[in-house]
Structures are given as structure tokens and as C-alpha cells.
């Protein structure tokens, strides 16, 4: 019927890349590249994707098209890339969720996380521990003391089950033997609002989301879970500096490709991306958005970081601190 026709037409229009010409690694890229982002347009990774795609288009003299494919907790878009031809013409820009966390948070995953390989790391962002202004502890060491004295009393906002804040909170619980009252949130709006009013005491997130609350005198930054201090917040010490190196969480954005993509293609994509990111204008715009720019990544480095994160995540899951599914 008419409906079938429309569906088919729409499907054909969006899968032009399926009719890719046979390509060899040497002359890659000789046709447009599709960069799938498994999140909605307008989301956090949107500006990064567009900036990188724009830079790569100029570099390759081939269009790099950003294709937002949200849905299924980012598994719909990721599945497309995992099942795509490993020719370097379908790549993905994504944070860790669909390639690390999903293994534990989603049953019946349509792909294997090993179906994707890391190409290069684009950005890193500091995960900050933020507290209501009236919350007693001012740094991480004080927080640990306070939490030991008040087990189960600290209300901690968790945004997204199985997400980075859930991971960070569970890591602190399991490594330091603490107990928080974890309060679930879906969106950042409700969470920031409840943190400002003091309904919850602490939460995690990128610096940019909390600047307004800090300036309004309702929130304070406590510590950073990144390896180095955030450029935007040079006064806030990291957990490692405070003597807790085991408490670290990273929030990177990486490019991924289907497993089996030729090594020369991965290498070329990584080198070109580094050149795009090294442009001072792009570096500055990304830093304004709260990202640290890694213009020195490579397929090996990115894959190593990915493996490290998978190990860390698995460890927290095994410790039982991260409650997922039925208890």
C-alpha cells in the first residue's frame, strides 16, 4: 500500500551508503562518509560531531555526513554501525554508554560490544562531584569522613541507571566501603533543580551544567574524578590528588568503526581527526563547551583506554555496588 511505499522510499533514501562502490584502503575516502551519532540531534555530542565532521570533510574533500540515530538507549544507532560494512565509510561518534555500559544494562543486545573498534579519542571531560552549598564537606577527603560517620544518610543524585554518575557513585561505594542513598533521575533539569534546593546533597556531571548554580551561590564543586584538573576549574583538586587514585571516572567521546575496518583507514582517520582537533579555533570552541581536547590519540591508545574502561566497569559490577535489574 501507500504506507509500504513510503517506508521503502524513506529507507532507500537513508541507506544510500549501502550501495557503496568497492573501495580499497589506499584511495580511501573516495566517497561520502556517514558518521552515525546514536543520540538525538541537539544533544551533548551534537556540536562536537558537527565540528569534527565539518573539519574532516574539508580535509578529505569528501562530505562527512552526521546522521543522528537515537533510540533504544543508543543501541539502535550503534547496531547500525556494528552491522555496517567494515570499509571506513560508516563510522560512529559516541561516549562510552553504547560500547561499555550496555553490556550490563541491556539484555538481548542486538550486537556485541566487540563488534566495534575504537578509532581515536576526540575529547575528555571532567566528571565533577558537586554538592549543595550547605552540604558540610568541602573536599573529597572530608566527604569520605562525613559519609563514614553518616552511613546511608547522604542523598546522592544518579542521572541515568548504568550511566556515568551511577558508575562513579558505585565505584566510591565499593572502593571505600561507603553507603549513599541513591536517588534516580532521568533528566538533568530535575536533578540540578533538586540539588540547588538541597533535596539531594550531591551529584555528578560535567562542569558546564553547574556553573549557573555555583554562580547563584546554591552549589559548590567538591572534587574532580578526572586524571587532571579541569582547565575551567583550576582550584578544584582531583580525587587522586586527595589520595584516592582508585576513584577515577572518565567521560570521553571517541570515533568507532566496525571491526575489520582496514588498519590503514583507521590510522588515516585518526591522524586526520587529530589535525582537525589541533586547529586552535576548534580547540577553543570545544574547551568553551567544557571538553579537554586530545589531539594526540591513535587507534592503539583509544582501544587501550576503551579496554581500561571496560575493566573498570566490570569490576564495579562484580563488586555488587551497582544495582542493576532485579535485586
Amino acid at each position, binding site marked *: 500500500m*501507500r*504506507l509500504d511505499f*513510503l*517506508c521503502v522510499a*524513506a*529507507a532507500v533514501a537513508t541507506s544510500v551508503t549501502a550501495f557503496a562502490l568497492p573501495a580499497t584502503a589506499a584511495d580511501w575516502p573516495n566517497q561520502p562518509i556517514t558518521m552515525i551519532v546514536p543520540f*538525538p*540531534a*541537539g*544533544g*551533548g555530542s*551534537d*556540536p562536537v560531531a558537527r565540528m569534527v565532521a565539518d573539519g574532516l570533510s574539508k580535509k578529505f574533500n569528501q562530505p562527512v555526513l552526521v*546522521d*543522528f*540515530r*537515537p*533510540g*533504544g*538507549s543508543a*543501541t*539502535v544507532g550503534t*547496531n547500525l554501525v556494528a552491522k555496517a560494512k567494515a570499509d571506513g565509510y560508516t563510522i560512529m561518534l559516541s561516549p562510552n554508554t553504547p560500547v561499555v555500559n550496555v553490556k550490563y*544494562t*541491556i539484555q*538481548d*543486545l542486538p550486537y556485541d560490544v566487540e563488534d566495534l573498534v575504537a578509532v581515536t579519542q576526540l575529547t575528555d571531560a571532567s566528571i565533577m562531584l558537586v554538592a549543595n552549598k550547605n552540604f558540610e564537606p568541602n573536599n573529597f577527603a572530608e566527604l569520605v569522613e562525613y559519609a563514614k560517620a553518616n552511613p546511608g544518610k547522604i*542523598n546522592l543524585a544518579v542521572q541515568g*541507571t*548504568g550511566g556515568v554518575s551511577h558508575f562513579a557513585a558505585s565505584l566510591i561505594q565499593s572502593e571505600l566501603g561507603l553507603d549513599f*542513598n*541513591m*536517588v*534516580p*533521575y*532521568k*533528566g*538533568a*533539569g*530535575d536533578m*540540578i*533543580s*533538586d540539588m*540547588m*534546593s538541597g*533535596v*539531594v546533597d550531591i551529584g555528578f556531571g560535567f562542569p*558546564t*551544567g553547574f*556553573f*549557573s*548554580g555555583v*554562580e*547563584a551561590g*546554591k552549589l559548590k564543586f567538591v572534587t574532580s574524578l578526572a586524571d587532571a584538573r579541569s582547565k575551567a576549574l583550576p582550584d578544584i583538586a582531583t580525587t587522586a590528588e586527595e589520595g584516592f587514585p582508585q576513584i577515577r571516572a572518565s567521560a570521553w567521546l571517541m570515533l568507532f568503526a566496525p571491526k575489520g575496518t582496514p588498519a590503514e583507514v583507521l590510522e588515516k582517520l585518526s591522524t586526520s581527526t587529530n589535525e582537525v582537533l589541533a586547529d586552535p579555533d576548534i580547540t577553543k570552541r570545544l574547551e*568553551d*563547551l*567544557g571538553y579537554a581536547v586530545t589531539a594526540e590519540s591513535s587507534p592503539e591508545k583509544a582501544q587501550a583506554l576503551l579496554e581500561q574502561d571496560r575493566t573498570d566497569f566490570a569490576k564495579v559490577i562484580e563488586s555488587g555496588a551497582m544495582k542493576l*535489574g532485579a*535485586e
Partner: protein
Amino acid sequence: MNALAELYDHVAIGLSVAVSPTNLWYCLLGVFLGQLLGALPGIGALVAITLLFPITYHLEPTTALIMLAGIYYGSAYGGSTASILLNLPGTPSSAVACLDGYPLARQGRAGAALSMTTIGSFVGGSIGIILMMLFAPTIAEWALEFGPWEYVALIIVGLVSASTVGSESPLKGIAMVIIGIMVGLVGQDIGSGIPRFTFGSNELLDGVGLVAVAIGLFGVAEVISTLKSGFADEVNQFKVTLRSMIPTRDDARRSWKPILRGSAVGSFFGILPGTGALIASFISYAVERKLADDPSRFGKGAMEGLVAPETANNAADQTAFIPTMTLGIPGSATMAIMLGVLIMNGITPGPAVIAEKPELFWGLIMSFWIGNVILVILNIPMIGIWTRILTVPYRALYPFILAFVCMGIYSIAQSSFDIWIVFVAGALGYFFRILDLPLAPLILGVVLGPMFEEHFLRSQVLSRGDFMMFLQRPVSLVLLLIALAIVVTSAYSALFPRKVQEPVIDGSTNA
């Protein structure tokens, strides 16, 4: 006097920014595109903004915000157009406009209906803007007092009033609300991440798209039932005359109070982060139905039932900027994008930004006003064109309706799965129509069900399972008492119906 002089200064700064040729041009572009894209089914503010977001990389932050904001509130104006003309909710928050707007169009009064919603939208938007100018920081502080307990109580008020929307029978209303809640609960549980009602489909993990459900239930079901009844009598049924476009004195008399009430309801809900405009439109419909002399007119083309919710969602769209601009709290995905524009330009929204960058804050606010005026000017001549759509024979029109529905829905997430949802919802909608079951409560259930669950879960985690918190917090207590009062008055009038149908002059409660 001092405060007045200060306000005058702010308005002057704002106007000087807003009327600069560049800003004026992007304001016009924004509202025009917003209005146009909002009228297309499925393409709401979020899709429209994300389409045009890349342009903002090359603009000054103030100009970028003026354009994005224009798209945002412009789409609220456009959203009701397709609801009224074709029973197709252009945006979820204009689903309520179908209830009485479409019957009005069937009576040949589409022009008057569009004129009245334009006026209502303008007044609602203006009142929202005035509130923002005078009390933005105070209101934002006050909105922070709304914790999980208050949201739970507020949603209970919403659900209770929902059962009175769109049907004479509260029982049917409640049944549809519950079906809606079940649809809303499809997806991953926020506490444990366990998938519910997904039947193993990963596409359903993030839940069922609200827009797809609304368009299917109202629009596609309408197409099916029209096809079923045959086209013969549909051709050229509507004559578009200038007279039919001008609202009657009766329309104006009936509408001015609903417009004011709608503005109040809308302004209130807009301030609370969340799906403000949508809930505001439902609540204001329920309020009008409660206060009406003759509630049985609702759903059959009552002007009040169209104007009040349309006013409310425009007011809510304006006041939704208050938490975003003063506290940096993104109330919706759309607001998060606008927040992103500020952050990308190194601007931190907050009390400081109003003091340090008055040209940004006041320029934006004054552009709202200019944008609203432009929308009225754009809308009035458009009404004549829009209503002409109705003179097209239905058998020529419906393929286009279905095509636009598919394109709009597909554009949200490039997913053909959503198109199937539309058609399943359409079939269900047709089935419900045969059974004479009201559709609006179902939509509200879809929205409020998951919100209720989320806030309730949170309230219980925070108070360690203590229900007394609902009664100990004053705002939540008052809201719960209001909900109780609605139930008691409804039950009372259902148990003790008035025996004689006497001519009623003052407002009376309905069964």
C-alpha cells in the same frame, strides 16, 4: 518610581538590541519557520530547532538565541493550525486543540477558531513575557521549592482533572487515563533499568514516542473514519467567506475570561521544569470545562475549550525561559539546546548574566514581544489560506495528510519504527472512537504516568518510604487537598444529580 525607572531602562536597552536589523531579521526568520514547521504534523519545536541549530555557530549569541526562541514559540502558534483544520496535532501540546477546534472547523468556523487562537496565543505570550520582565529571579527561586513531593501532588491534581476532559463519563475518562499510563510506562524502568512492556524490542527501550501516539490517535483515526463513511458528502462542504473568519461577538464574550485563566495556568506550569506547555493545556481545558455553564458543549465545538488551552501553552512557552535564563536549569530538550548556545559562547546563565549582560537578557525578552507581534501579523492573512485547505476534496487531501504524517514522524529520529507506532495508534484510535471513548485523557496518561512514577519513586527514596512527607510539606498538602476537593465535588454531583434541569445562569459543577 525607582523600580519603574529601572524597568524603563531595561526595556530601552532591550528594544535597542531587539530592533537592530540583524536581530529583527533573525527574529522574523525564526518565528516564520517555527510557525510553518509547527503546523506540519510531527515536526515540533525540537525538530525545527535541531534542523536550524548549525546556523547559530556563525551568529552572535544574542542573535542565535533570538532566532531559536522564535522557532520555539512560533511552533506553538503553528501547532494548533493542523489540529483545528485536520484533527492532526502538529505538536503534542496542541493535542487538546483537536477536541473543540476540529468540531468548530466542521461547523464551518475554522477561520474564527484560528483567529481566536491567534488572539489567545498573543495575550498568553504577552502575559508570560510581562511576568518574566517583572519577577523572573523571584519566580525562579520559588520554583525551586517544588521537590518530588510537590510534583507528585501536582500530577495527582492533573490526573484527577484529566478524567473530566473530553467525556461525560468519568469512568470512561479514568479507563483511558490508565491505558495512557500503561503506554507511558513502556521502556526502561528508571530505578533498575529493567525493560517493561517492550516485548524484547530494543526500539521500545526509550518508550513510545508521544508525538507518534498523538498523531495516530487523532489524525490517522480521523482519516480512517472519514474513509469509512465515504467521501461523497465531503466535497466542497466548506465555504470560506470573510464573515466566517471574523470571530463573533459571542466568541469574544465567551473567550476573554478563558484567555485570562489560560494565561494564569500556562504561566504557572511553564515555570516548572518539565513538560510545562503540554500539561498546562490539559489543565486549562479541564478548568474551563469545570467552570462552564454547560459542560456538554465541550468536545462539540466550544470556543472556550479551544482558546484557553492554546493561550496556556503559549504562556507556558514564555515562562519556561525563566528557570533556564535565571538558574541554568534546562526544563526540556529544547531549552537544553538554547542553554548550549549560551555555554558555547562562554556565557553562564544566572542572576549574574542579567546584571552583567543586560543587552542579552532584555534584548531576548523584547524580541519575544516583537516576535509575538510578527506572528499575529503573519497569522491573520494566513488564516484565509489555511482555511482554503478545507475546500479541497477529502479524497485528494488524505494521501497528503498521511504523507506529511510519515515524513514528520520519520524526521524525529529517522526511524521507520515510529511510523508503525503512528498506524497502530491510528487503528486503536479508530477503535476507541467506535466505542465512544475519549482520547485526550489517554494522551495525558502517557505524559503524566511516567512523570508520576519518576517523582514518586524519588520522593520515596528520599523520605525512606515515609508517606507523611506529602502532608508535612505545605505546598504538597494544599495540592492534595485540591485533588480531594475535585474528587468529592465530582462524586457528589454524580451521586446527587440535580433533579430538574433549571435554566442556569451562574457557574455550576458538572457530573
